[in-house]
């Protein structure tokens, strides 16, 4: 209450002073850094006079301060974290304004402010959890996408490659099971949903990761997974013209194709012979669809018909076993990649405005010859229009174009897969065709003689295909801010973006797809001309889409201080509207020379040339229109007493235009509160070596809404039925009125410190999360007709962990050695999961999947208990009712419950982080970053006979298979049998013998940088010049598994670790 009275009194006093007192003058001034004339935000100015007058004011984010002072003689003592206190004496009345320069203190905490996207916070007084990465740290890595660099240097974040092939940044583990798990990305004040590849990494000033609830509550419901704020470079006032230039050239090594551990050709031929003997190919031979046989099976068939001698077969077999498709991939398809990157930036400023222009150009060529060009242009400008009125703008334009290259592994396929002895070229390198969709005997028969050539040349096909896409993005941000009296400031921000993307897939008449499509519709009458319902010529698919988004934000800020009090507050609202519309089309029979398109009848059924089945010609025309609208209101308040105690609070509520959702479910308030205590500011604190010590804690609530929370069932119109020629509809969402919001509460406590004048600094934080009413798929009786599972609020999870960041200057002087350690521990467990399903098979899936067993991690790794291989047959065995069994239907069926499984541990690492060491001597700096992940498990791949027989995908483990009694003592790989129950494969695939520990340590990058000495450069009028060399993707230096598997590249499909990346470059500023 006393405080409140003081506030009122002060406000009243200020009011009177501002309006009446004639003997007073409003004195204004600005604080700048002596080194680069940059303004210093949130400095503290203590104005005193010999007469006992004392007044404390704070500078705003623009470095300005003002105070109404009676006539007299004053002294201003200016302090700001990271700077030595500056003193200036002055007289009132005076002309002009004050300019006070401060000197930076070495070895202070480097990053004084953090940007939340709404405001700049003084780090020493903030209550929340932030971690910041600076330009210097970012520039130790190369690459097109700036966020990819965070993994090697960031704190508290893990790139999760276990639950999906694409790495996903995860900040402090999970806070939802089903909802979006990506952090929210903020680019210069506004949420960014575009492609991060559009941002030139050289334009980035810093990246701040907001990790706790105080971060989330200001950014609303979308921030439950943490927020990443990207701040771009801006020019400062009163700085001379500066020119920066940098360039990098990188060479990307070929990936190691042998990593896949595919089955060799000789083994595969053996399997084909085995299956042929069992009659496996009979139905393919008799197939009406002319289903192809591999070359060796064709020969086996000929031999069985007596048309080929045993010797001829043996000879061919020997030849086939010497072929390896992966050798051909390595020789003809994969090549070294090359990346080039250039960036130029000019900046300058005067008294009233500052500007910068930057341009970047990237050209990347990957291992398959895909080229990716990107140009970016950026122009930023700030005007001080009047004393209190500032206008700033940023315009960015980016233009990117991607053109696909050769077809790689997984794209060159034969029929159901690729047989290992497929050969793409003969000994002289001349391209060869491989078996594709139809039997060779059929394609060479008179029946198909009048059709277009139907053979498939893997090495030539890409030459006839032009697959490219382009993106043009224009973005403008405007910010008008006006300083009102009494420490108030109002600002209005407006952002407009227009993005056009287009993609074209031109499959020339020679492309296999085109020939195949034309042939399958062709009608060949017994006499007369061949009829082509799909005209001969190229097929062109194109798609264009346009995104237009507008965002407004109005904000009213207050920042003021008097005596020992400091208050900063903020209220505002935000409004966003994003509209995407697109259209796709397909053209047949395109003459690429004369640009004439063919005519087709989409409404008529044509018989397929091979199967006789009737089908329509695919009509590729479609249109779509999507809108993503968003409104929110927010407020934020922080109060600091004696620069030592801070309390903060924030609240926000937002709503979006999810279709079919009831209005009262739209808005939900989120809030947070926090405290901080700077111990070093206390009078009693007298510990020599402690320069800074702050304790802080926050708690807050966030939430998540699911688009499935609809009050009514909704339908979607996918297109027109070619049969009834009318639009048809499907159910999109089923009315699910019982759903509630997800609720996530998060507590964070931390300590920030700086010891021995910066020798050791950093932070230690503990957090815990409690997420309740989480959405999950709940299996239901599908007699209800709405599918086999629906969304319900089914789960409650708890997570806790620690983030530790330590920066140490181990050696300084001539030889410098600095170390940064980011170490995180994260543990989550399911507290409640209301899913009745305990069927073991639902907990075993190929990727990491949500298990939902109370007391265990959300992503848990389970396996079938292993009873060894049957000594007589080599069949894998598990346990049914505690007895070794080969009854696979019982083993993988309802007889096995989750309690019968073996639990290994989490599928996500419990401990992870990185360690960066910088060694420097004279101008030479060597940086090495290592990443580590510990305490988690993954399931490795092995032989899957069903997959081998049907899709020709074998695994090298086949070599170790059980062959004769006694082998069961040496191997766990099941024998080859036919018929092969798929349940037998399913049991082995999920058996405990295939579980490995994921622990590993890898080198993320090594960077060597040489900075030329200033005196050498002085004569050349160059301020700085750095040359650097960098190696990335260096691979693993320790792994717990003995199989040579990189646990980050284990998901199914072709998921190869990338090749090493060697880069060289220079950076200079004039």
């Amino acid at each position, binding site marked *: 209450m006393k405080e409140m009275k003081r506030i009122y009194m002060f406000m009243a006093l200020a009011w009177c002073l501002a309006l009446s007192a004639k003997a007073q003058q409003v004195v204004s001034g600005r604080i700048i850094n002596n080194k680069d004339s940059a303004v210093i935000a949130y400095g503290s100015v203590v104005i005193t006079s010999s007469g006992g007058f004392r007044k404390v004011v704070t500078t705003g984010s623009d470095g300005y301060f003002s105070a109404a002072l009676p006539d007299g003689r004053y002294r201003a003592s200016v302090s700001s974290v990271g700077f030595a206190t500056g003193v200036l004496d002055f007289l009132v009345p005076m002309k002009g304004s004050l300019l006070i320069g401060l000197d930076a203190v070495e070895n202070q905490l480097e990053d004084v402010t953090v940007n939340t996207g709404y405001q700049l916070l003084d780090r020493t007084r903030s209550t929340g959890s932030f971690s910041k990465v600076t330009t210097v740290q970012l520039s130790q890595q190369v690459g097109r996408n700036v966020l990819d660099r965070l993994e090697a240097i960031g704190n508290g974040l893990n790139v999760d490659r276990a639950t999906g092939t694409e790495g996903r940044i995860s900040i402090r583990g999970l806070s939802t099971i089903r909802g979006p798990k990506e952090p929210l990305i903020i680019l210069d004040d506004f949420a960014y949903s575009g492609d991060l590849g559009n941002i030139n990494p050289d334009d980035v000033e810093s990246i701040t990761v907001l990790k706790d609830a105080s971060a989330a509550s200001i950014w609303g419901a979308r921030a439950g997974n943490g927020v990443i704020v990207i701040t771009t470079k801006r020019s400062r006032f009163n700085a001379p013209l500066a020119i920066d230039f940098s360039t990098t050239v990188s060479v990307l090594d070929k990936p190691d194709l042998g990593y896949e551990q595919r089955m060799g050709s000789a083994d595969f031929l053996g399997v084909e012979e085995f299956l042929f003997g069992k009659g496996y190919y009979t139905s393919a031979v008799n197939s009406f669809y002319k289903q192809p046989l591999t070359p060796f099976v064709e020969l086996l068939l000929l031999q069985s018909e007596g048309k080929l001698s045993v010797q001829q077969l043996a000879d061919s077999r020997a030849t086939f076993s010497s072929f390896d498709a992966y050798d051909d991939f390595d020789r003809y398809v994969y090549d070294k990649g090359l990346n080039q990157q250039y960036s130029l930036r000019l900046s300058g400023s005067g008294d009233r405005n500052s500007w910068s222009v930057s341009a970047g150009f990237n050209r990347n060529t990957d291992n398959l010859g895909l080229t990716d060009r990107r140009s970016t242009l950026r122009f930023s400008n700030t005007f001080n229009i009047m004393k209190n009125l500032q206008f700033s703008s940023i315009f960015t334009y980016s233009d990117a174009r991607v053109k696909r290259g050769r077809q790689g592994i997984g794209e060159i396929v034969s029929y159901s897969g690729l047989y290992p002895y497929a050969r793409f070229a003969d000994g002289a390198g001349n391209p060869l065709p491989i078996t594709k969709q139809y039997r060779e005997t059929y394609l060479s028969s008179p029946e198909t003689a009048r059709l277009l050539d139907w053979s498939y040349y893997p090495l030539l096909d890409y030459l006839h295909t032009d697959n490219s896409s382009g993106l043009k993005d224009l973005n403008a941000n405007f910010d008008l801010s006006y300083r009102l009296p009494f420490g108030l400031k109002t600002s209005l921000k407006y952002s407009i973006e227009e993005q056009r993307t287009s993609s074209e897939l031109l499959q020339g008449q020679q492309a296999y797809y085109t020939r195949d499509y034309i042939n399958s519709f062709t009608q060949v009458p017994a006499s007369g001309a061949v009829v082509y319902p799909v005209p001969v010529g190229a097929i062109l698919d194109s798609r264009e889409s346009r995104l237009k988004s507008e965002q407004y934000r109005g904000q009213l800020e207050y920042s003021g201080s008097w005596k020992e009090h400091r208050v900063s507050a903020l209220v505002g609202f935000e409004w966003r509207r994003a509209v995407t519309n697109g259209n796709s089309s397909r053209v047949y029979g395109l003459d690429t020379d004369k640009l004439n398109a063919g005519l087709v009848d989409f409404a008529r059924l044509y018989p397929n040339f091979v199967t006789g089945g009737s089908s329509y010609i695919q009509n590729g025309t479609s249109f779509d229109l999507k809108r993503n609208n968003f409104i929110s209101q927010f407020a934020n308040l922080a109060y600091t007493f004696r620069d030592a105690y801070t309390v903060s609070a924030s609240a926000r509520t937002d709503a979006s235009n999810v279709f079919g959702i009831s209005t009262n479910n739209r808005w939900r308030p989120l809030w947070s509160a926090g405290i901080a205590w700077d111990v070093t500011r206390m009078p009693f604190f007298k510990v020599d070596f402690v320069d800074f010590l702050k304790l802080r804690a926050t708690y807050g609530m966030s939430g998540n809404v699911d688009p499935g929370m609809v009050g009514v069932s909704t339908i979607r119109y996918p297109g027109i039925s070619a049969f*009834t020629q009318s639009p048809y509809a499907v159910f999109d969402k089923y009315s699910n009125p019982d759903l509630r919001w997800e609720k996530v509460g998060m507590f964070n406590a931390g300590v920030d410190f700086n010891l021995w004048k910066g020798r050791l600094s950093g932070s230690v934080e503990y957090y815990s999360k409690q997420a309740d009413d989480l959405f999950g798929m709940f299996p239901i009786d599908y007699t209800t007709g709405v599918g086999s599972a629906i969304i319900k609020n089914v789960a409650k999870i708890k997570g806790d962990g620690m983030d530790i960041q330590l920066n140490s200057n181990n050696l300084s002087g001539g030889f410098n050695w600095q170390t940064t350690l980011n170490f995180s521990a994260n543990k989550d467990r399911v507290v409640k999961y209301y899913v009745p399903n305990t069927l073991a098979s639902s907990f075993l899936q190929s990727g990491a999947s949500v298990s939902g067993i109370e007391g265990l991690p959300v992503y848990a790794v389970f396996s079938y208990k292993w009873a060894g291989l049957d000594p007589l047959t080599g069949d894998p065995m598990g346990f049914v009712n505690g007895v070794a069994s080969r009854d696979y239907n019982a083993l993988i069926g309802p007889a096995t419950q989750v309690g019968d499984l073996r639990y290994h541990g989490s599928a996500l690492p419990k401990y992870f982080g990185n360690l960066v060491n910088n060694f420097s001597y004279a101008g030479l700096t060597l940086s090495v970053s290592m990443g580590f992940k510990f305490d988690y498990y993954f399931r490795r791949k092995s032989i899957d006979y069903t997959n081998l027989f049907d899709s020709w995908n074998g695994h090298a483990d086949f070599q170790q298979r059980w062959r004769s009694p006694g082998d069961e003592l040496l191997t766990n790989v099941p024998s080859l049998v036919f018929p092969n129950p798929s349940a037998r494969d399913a049991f082995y695939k999920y058996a405990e013998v295939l579980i490995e520990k994921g622990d590993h340590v890898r080198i993320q990058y090594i960077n060597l940088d040489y900075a030329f000495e200033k005196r050498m450069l002085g004569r050349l009028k160059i301020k700085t010049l750095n040359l650097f060399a960098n190696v990335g993707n260096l691979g693993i230096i320790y792994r717990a598994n003995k199989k040579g598997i990189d646990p980050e590249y284990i998901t199914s499909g072709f998921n190869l670790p990338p090749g090493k990346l060697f880069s060289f470059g220079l950076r200079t500023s004039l």
Partner: protein
Amino acid sequence: MKRIHISFLPLLVAYVIMATGCNKLLEEKSDQKLAVPGTITDFQALMDNFTVLNSSEPISLEVSADDYSTSDADLAGSSEAQRRMYSWQKDYLFAPANNDWSTTYRAVYHCGSVISGLESSPLKRDAAFNNVMGQALVFRAKFYMQAMAVWGKSYLLSSGQDPGVPLRPSLNFNEATVRASLKEGYDQAIEGLKMAVPLLPVKSIHPYRPSRAAAYGLLARAMLYTGRYMEAGLYADSCIQLSDQLIDFNKLNPADRYSFSLFNSEVIFDTYAAPGGPVVSSRARINPQIMDAYQPNDLRKTLYFTQTNGNYFFKGTYHQPLLFFGIATDEMYLVWAECLVRTGQVQRGLAVLDKLLVSRFKTGTYSPVAITDAKSALKVVLDERRKELVMRGLRWMDLKRLNAEGANILVSRSFNGQTVSLLPNDPRYALPIPEDIIQLSGIPQNER
């Protein structure tokens, strides 16, 4: 003070923009292709979803039946559930979650939504409204009947008192599933079809959409399966009166990969199933009993089948390349003939049969059946039914109903060196409800 006013202006303007635009912004559709069903176009669009409605016939009706057999190697290439179904095992005949039960009830929900959506809508009860309502009623009745054919015993064994299938009258997925009796199921289907008759146009714009003839056709089937032969015959006759076309098989080319074009003139209501496992056309070897029954001049033998290595494979589907399970004129002639014979009008019945068969034989070679006793006439009609309606999803139900009357048909299959048989009226004629459904819903399983 004036300055303060001016400086607050942008904020004020922005607030006004927000306040006015706020609700409009939140009401905008997130995707233009979305809708809450309300217009007649919406409901018709739901009924034109052929994937859910036309292509979801239960293939288990054909996998289980004795129209075919397959080789050991081809059986080994089928899925576990298909192998168990083929060998008439007691349990685990359906893979969990995605099976004939799920597609059936997805369609039942689909139709139910349209029916209740129309009933509660303020739309004008005009021809378009009636048409859509009729379509939904016909589809739902058809799915009830097919479900009872798969999971129910013959109606005739207990006058419908045996357990049937759930009817799911409510759209609320929180409401528990209960099994209705066969009688309740057929009553519901028949009531829906009778309601649909006056609502539907005589002919629809496409055989994917049910017409009045389709409703009559399904009514004929329902009456036949429930032993009401007089009514079954009348409904078949009503159907034929609306659509009596028969294809002259002499005009077709046996060399064609598929002898019959899609949506040919005999098709009244086109629904179909995708063959899988042992019933795939290159795996399913047609039962030699059927092949031996064709007379030399019967064109069906060459138009329906191809011969490879002494085995016959089916190519006579009316929905190439998939299996036609819908209503076609030929089936209606056979139902009418059977019912006339069963109700004592033997000569009239045989005349109807002649009308069908003359189009199936080489021109000038067909000689009318000359029999007078009812029992032999019925056998002739049923034999012709077997020869005409191969792989149409009808045999399994015929086995049930004929055995219920005492036909005493024993079916058996040999594979991997063993032979399994299914005795007449064996409980396994009602396939087991998917085990996961039993676990999730608690409804009683069929007698095993």
